[in-house]
C-alpha cells in the first residue's frame, strides 16, 4: 500500500507529465495565426491550471504529513525514569512488608511444643506437655500383690509464658499417678537481669541435682535412691541467676519446708521457714568443647520444724507411713516403730532438719556421667507412748549414673538426645539408642531402729543396680526399658510394706513410653 508521500509524488508526476505532453504538442503541431492565438491562450490556461493543481497537491501533502518527531532519547529517558520509580516504589513496599512481618506475632508448632509470641518477644505463650505410660513387672517378689501393671505415671500439660518481657510464668498440673490431680508447678519469675531473678510460687527446691533435672531428660525412667532424701517441690520465694556469663548458677530461697522426697500441698502452714540454696559451676562453659558440659556444685537446706509438722517427714510413697521407697516405688523403710505396751507410737519431725548435697555431672558427645551424694540429718521424736524419745537421725545416699548413646548422637542433660535419623521405617530412620547404667544406695541411720522404726520390717540399707536401654524415636518420643535390682539389709518380715518388700530383693522391669514436647 502506498504511503502518503508516495501518493503525493505520483500526483506531481502526473501533473508534470500532462504539462510536458501539452508542451510537446505545442512544439510538434504548428498553428495558424487565428488558430495560433486561440491555442496559445488555451495552453496558457492549461499551464495556469497545472500550476494550480501542483500547488493543491503540495498543500495536500503538507496537511497529511506526520507531526514533527519528539527526540527519541527524551521519550526513552522519561519512560525509563517512570519504570525505575515504579520498581523503586515496589522495592520500598517490599522492605516495609518485610519490616511489618518482623512485627507480626509468631506462631510456631514443632518439637518444642506449641508457641506463640509477639513480634518483639515481650509476650509469649507456650504449651508443652509430658505423658508417661509405664509398665512395671516385678520378679521374684513372692507374689507381693498389687505392684505389677500399667500406670499413667505422669500426664502433665505445661503452660509457660512471658508477659511484659521480664515476667515468666509456668503452670503444671499433673493428672497422672495414683493420687488425685495436683498442681506441681505454679510460679512467677521476674528476670531483672540474667544474674538476678526472683521466683515465687511452687517450684522445685534448689537442692538435689537429679531432682532438678527435667523428668523427660532423665537417664532412667525413675530417679535413684538419692532423690529419696531431697525435697521435691515447695512453696516459697527464691533469688537465682547465672553469673559470669552463666558459668556460675546460684539459687537461694525461703520455703515452707517439706520432708524428704515430699511435694508440698498448695497450702502448707509452718511457722518456721526452711532455707534452701545451691551453687553450681560450669567453669568451662564457654571454653574447651570437651569440658563445656562439666558441672559441679552443691545444694543444701536447713529448717527448724515445730513438733507435729505434718509435712516434715519423708513422703509416704509406697506405704501408709512416712518413709523411703525403691526405684520401683515400693516402700522399704518406714517410721513404723513397733508397738509399745500395746500402743502404736507415732514418729514426728521435731526440730532441726538440714541437708547437703555435693553433686556433679558431665556430658561429652554420646557419653554422660552423673554423681550425687546427699546427707539428710533430721531430729525426730517418738510420741504417743511415754517416754517420748528424740534423736537426730542422719541418713545418707549416693549414686553414679552413666549413659552412652550407641548410635553416636550427643546427649545433653537438658534436652536429651536428638536422633540424627528420627524413626521413620519408610526412609530407614530408626531413631537413637542409649545404653544406661546406675548404682545407688541409701543408708538409714542405725539410731532409727532404736525406737523409731521396726528393724524386722524396715531395711537399714538399700542398694540399687540398674541397667537400661532408651530408644529415642525422635526428640519428643522415647521408649525406655530398664531392669533394676535392689537388695536390702535388714527388714524382711511382716505382711505389708516395708516388710514384704524387703523380704526379697526387688527386681523390676520397667518400660516407659514417653511423649514430651
Amino acid at each position: 500500500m502506498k504511503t502518503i508521500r508516495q501518493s503525493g509524488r505520483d500526483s506531481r508526476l502526473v501533473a508534470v507529465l500532462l504539462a510536458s505532453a501539452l508542451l510537446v504538442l505545442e512544439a510538434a503541431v504548428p498553428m495558424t495565426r487565428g488558430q495560433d492565438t486561440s491555442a496559445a491562450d488555451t495552453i496558457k490556461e492549461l499551464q495556469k491550471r497545472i500550476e494550480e493543481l501542483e500547488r493543491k497537491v503540495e498543500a495536500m501533502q503538507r496537511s497529511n504529513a506526520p507531526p514533527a518527531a519528539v527526540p527519541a532519547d527524551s521519550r526513552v529517558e522519561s519512560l525509563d525514569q517512570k519504570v525505575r520509580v515504579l520498581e523503586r516504589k515496589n522495592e520500598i513496599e517490599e522492605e516495609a512488608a518485610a519490616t511489618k512481618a518482623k512485627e507480626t506475632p509468631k506462631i510456631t508448632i514443632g518439637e518444642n511444643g506449641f508457641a506463640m509470641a509477639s513480634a518483639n518477644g515481650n509476650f509469649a505463650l507456650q504449651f508443652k506437655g509430658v505423658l508417661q505410660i509405664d509398665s512395671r513387672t516385678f520378679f521374684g517378689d513372692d507374689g507381693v500383690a498389687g505392684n505389677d501393671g500399667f500406670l499413667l505415671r505422669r500426664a502433665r500439660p505445661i503452660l509457660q509464658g512471658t508477659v511484659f518481657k521480664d515476667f515468666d510464668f509456668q503452670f503444671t498440673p499433673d493428672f497422672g499417678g495414683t493420687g488425685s490431680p495436683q498442681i506441681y508447678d505454679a510460679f512467677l519469675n521476674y528476670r531483672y537481669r540474667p544474674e538476678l531473678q526472683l521466683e515465687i510460687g511452687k517450684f522445685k527446691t534448689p537442692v538435689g541435682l537429679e531432682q532438678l533435672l527435667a523428668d523427660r531428660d532423665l537417664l532412667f525412667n525413675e530417679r535413684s535412691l538419692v532423690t529419696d532424701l531431697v525435697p521435691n517441690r515447695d512453696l516459697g520465694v527464691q533469688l537465682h541467676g547465672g553469673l559470669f556469663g552463666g558459668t556460675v548458677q546460684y539459687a537461694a530461697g525461703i520455703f515452707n519446708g517439706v520432708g524428704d522426697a515430699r511435694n508440698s500441698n498448695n497450702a502448707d502452714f509452718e511457722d518456721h521457714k526452711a532455707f534452701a540454696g545451691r551453687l553450681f559451676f560450669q567453669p568451662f562453659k564457654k571454653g574447651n568443647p570437651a569440658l563445656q558440659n562439666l558441672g559441679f556444685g552443691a545444694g543444701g537446706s536447713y529448717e527448724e520444724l515445730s513438733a507435729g509438722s505434718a509435712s516434715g517427714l519423708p513422703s509416704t510413697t509406697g506405704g501408709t507411713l512416712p518413709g523411703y521407697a525403691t526405684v520401683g516405688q515400693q516402700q522399704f523403710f518406714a517410721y513404723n516403730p513397733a508397738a509399745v505396751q500395746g500402743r502404736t507410737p507415732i514418729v514426728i519431725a521435731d526440730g532441726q532438719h538440714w541437708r547437703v548435697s555435693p553433686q556433679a555431672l558431665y556430658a561429652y558427645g554420646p557419653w554422660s556421667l552423673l554423681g550425687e551424694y546427699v546427707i539428710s540429718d533430721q531430729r525426730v521424736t517418738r510420741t504417743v507412748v511415754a517416754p517420748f524419745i528424740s534423736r537426730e537421725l542422719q541418713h545418707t545416699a549416693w549414686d553414679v549414673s552413666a549413659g552412652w548413646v550407641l548410635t553416636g548422637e550427643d546427649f545433653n542433660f537438658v534436652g536429651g538426645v536428638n536422633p540424627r535419623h528420627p524413626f521413620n521405617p519408610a526412609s530407614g530412620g530408626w531413631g537413637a539408642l542409649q545404653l544406661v547404667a546406675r548404682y545407688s544406695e541409701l543408708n538409714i541411720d542405725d539410731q532409727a531402729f532404736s525406737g523409731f522404726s521396726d528393724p524386722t520390717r524396715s531395711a537399714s540399707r538399700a542398694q540399687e543396680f540398674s541397667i537400661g536401654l532408651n530408644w529415642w524415636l525422635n526428640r519428643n518420643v522415647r521408649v525406655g526399658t530398664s531392669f533394676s535390682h535392689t537388695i536390702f539389709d535388714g527388714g524382711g518380715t511382716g505382711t505389708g510394706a516395708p516388710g514384704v518388700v524387703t523380704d526379697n530383693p526387688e527386681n523390676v522391669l520397667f518400660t516407659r513410653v514417653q511423649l514430651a514436647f
Partner: protein
Amino acid sequence: MDPIRFVAAVLLGATALSSPAKDITLLNVSYDPTRELYQDVNAAFAKKWEAKTGDKVVVQQSHGGSGKQARSVIDGLEADVVTLALAYDIDAIAEKGKLLPADWQKRLPNNSAPYTSTIVFLVRKGNPKGIRDWDDLAKSGVAVITPNPRTSGGARWNYLAAWGYALKTLGNDEAKARDFLTRIFKNVPVLDTGARGATTTFVQRGIGDVLIAWENEALLSLKESGKGEFEIVVPSITILAEPPVTWVDKVTNRRGTKAVAQGYLEFLYTPEGQEIAARHYYRPRSEAALQKFAANFPKVTTFTIDEMFGGWQKAQKAHFGDGGSFDQVQAAKH
C-alpha cells in the same frame, strides 16, 4: 575432713576459676547513613577499651530512619546507646519511653553532638538540569529525591533547610514558604524511609535529577562512585545539622553497661574519634581535625534550628506533627 567443710572449700575454689575478663555487648541504635562511620568507630573503640580494661567489647549496630529508630527504642529495642539524627528523636525517647533523663543533652560536650553535618545537593555529572539553588528544585521537570520526614531525621533537616531558605528569600512569609515546599514535593517521585534509602534511590537506582542529602552522604557517594558520575552543589544557604548521641540509662543500668556505654560515646570526642568522623565526612568539633581534613568540606553558609525555628520542639510541632506543614504540603500536592 568434715564433709561440709570439704564441699565449701571446693566451691570457693571453683568460684575463683569462674571470674574471667568480661565479654560485653553494646547495641548502638543509629540513624540511616552512619554505617561506615560506626564500623570504624566500633573497631577503634573496642581495641582501646580492651587495652584499658581487659574486657572485650562488641558493638552491634542498628540503622534506620531516625524517627523510626526512636520509636523502636521506645517500644522496647534494648539500645545501650542511641546516635540519632536530631535531638528531638532522643527527647521523644526520654519523654515517652522514660528511658533517660530529660536533660540528657547536657551530659556530653557540644550539646551531645560530637560532629555536625549540613544539607547539600547531589546532582548528576554535568548538572544537566542546571541545579544551583533551592529555587531550581521547585521548577517543573526537575525530579527531586528526599526521604520521608515522618520517618527520617535527614528528611526533616532537608525540609527545614528548604523552609528556612524560603523564609529568608520570600519575606519571611509562611504561606509562601509552604507553597514553595509544595512545589518541591510535587517533584518528589519516591519517598524513602531513610537517608540511606534515598541515596540508594538516586545513586544505585538512577532515579531523579537531584538528591537533597546529608553532606557526608553526598561526599561518600562521590567517593564511592569513583567515576565522576556525580557532583555536589552547595546551596546559597543551608541548615547546620547537629546529630546527637547519648546512652540509654534504663538499659545500661539494667545491663550493667553504663561505664562502657559512656566511654564509647566519649571516645567520639577524642582526637582519634574526631579523625574517624572527619574521614567519614562528618564535620568534627575539634579544630585540629577540621584543619587536617579541611579539603573534605566546602564552605557553607548555615543557620541553626534554634535561630530559624526556635528549636526542635517548636519545629517538630509546626512542621512534622499531625496537621503540621508537611501534612499540608502532602495534601496540597495531590
